[in-house]
């Protein structure tokens, strides 16, 4: 009888440990996602200023600028699930990247003090977003491993925990690029 009780007690302990591990990993993902969301919001706050300072110079890019404004509005007006936030961030990042490339064609804009300041702040935010993406991916990876590995997978399916999506890190962030390309010269 005693042995039986000890075994039951041990099993219960293991179950509690597995449950707590899964919950802490899930919460870790949520916490880091909140951090990521905060940095993304900082970038969204910067976009109206950016758009207004460049639109009088970049007359040929009005469609891109409108699209950026539209995406920003979408990101701020609704509370999006993580998968959509990821997709939206990907779109905005790529559009901003393209926009910064086209800036090269506008020498007067490149010399504008206000724009240079915005560009500098944006670059810095990109660095922070990149760090947040990497932190998020690491936490999602830990979480996904936990819900798929034996024996926590049984507990995870019982708790209805689902796999979470990773951010695809842009190739330029994965390479050991020359920092000069990120930092303002």
């Amino acid at each position: 009888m005693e042995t039986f009780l000890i075994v039951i007690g041990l099993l219960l302990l293991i179950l509690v440990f597995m449950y707590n591990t899964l919950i802490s990993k899930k919460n870790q993902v949520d916490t880091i996602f909140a951090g990521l969301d905060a940095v993304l919001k900082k970038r969204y706050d910067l976009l109206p200023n950016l758009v207004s300072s460049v639109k009088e110079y970049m007359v040929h890019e009005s469609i891109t600028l409108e699209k950026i404004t539209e995406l920003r509005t979408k990101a701020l007006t609704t509370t999006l699930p993580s998968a959509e936030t990821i997709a939206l961030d990907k779109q905005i990042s790529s559009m901003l990247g393209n926009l910064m490339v086209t800036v090269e064609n506008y020498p007067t804009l490149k010399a504008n003090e206000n724009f240079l300041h915005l560009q500098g702040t944006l670059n810095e935010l990109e660095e922070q977003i990149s760090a947040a993406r990497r932190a998020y991916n690491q936490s999602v990876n830990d979480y996904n491993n936990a819900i798929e590995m034996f024996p926590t997978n049984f507990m995870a399916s019982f708790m209805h925990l689902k796999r979470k999506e990773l951010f695809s890190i842009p190739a330029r962030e994965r390479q050991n690029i020359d920092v000069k390309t990120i930092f303002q010269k």
Partner: protein
Amino acid sequence: MKPTLSSLLDYYYESMYPLLKSLEEKRLGILSTLKKAALILFCGAILLFFILTHTPLLIPLHAFLLSALSGFLIFMFIYRYESSGYGILFKDGVIEKMIHFIDPSLLYSKMSFIREEEFKKSTLFVESYDRFSGSDLVSGKIEGVDVHFCGLHVEKKVRDTDDKEIWNDIFQGLFFVADFNKIFHAKMVILPDVAEKNFGILGSWMQGMNTQRGELIQLDHIEFEKLFVVYGSDQIESRYILSQAFMEKIVQFHKKIKKPLALSFVDSKIYLALHYTKPLFEPILTRSVLEFNYIKEYFELLVMITGIVSEFKLNEKLWSKR
């Protein structure tokens, strides 16, 4: 202009050589004094041994030990006295000149070292200590970055199994502090990965359980992860500091230096501790200062330290840090 070995060679013969010649004479003088002292003390110890063996109080072994120990202690006293005087001359004539050759704007103070508060603030070594000493403080701006570094020796007093007092090293080596090129508020420590190296997955699990230094930060650079363990107070900001490119630079620096390396990031500053088994800029009495290869070793060490700024690109500041 970055100092090179060939430019040092010119400087060595043009500016340093006359001074080194007089330093060499001094060194030879000290060596000769020490040789004489050793000979006299040796004879004195033999004489003492014979006197002691003829007293009924001591057995020959004790008499031998007593006379040998007395001779040795007196010799060490003379050695310390002579070599410290030489050490000061060497630092004035070689180390200070070389630092000014590398960067004339740097200030050198052979007797100073970083403040204890700064050492504590780095959180690189959390163990309590009983003795804090150092020397050779160099401070100033390198490529626009505020930098200071020195040789540091931090020890703890412990008692061995026979209840004898012994001093254990907590840290001995180079302690380097510089402004970091990004602003951050979190704290982060990078330490050599001993546990995972020795115990594998179990070691990694143990590191995760250790919350003394903050959360364990697992990073996406395989080689870096093998060499170091990282603890930080913020998962995102830690990665903001440790970009892929920066981790690669730390790995390359570690490969080049081949010495235990620890780093910490506190209040937008980078702290670097590099373990050495001997004092950094102390001269070796038995080596001639007229030997260029000997002087070159100190030059290479100084170039390595001052080169940390460009090695880690600390001068390429982000927008808000300018």
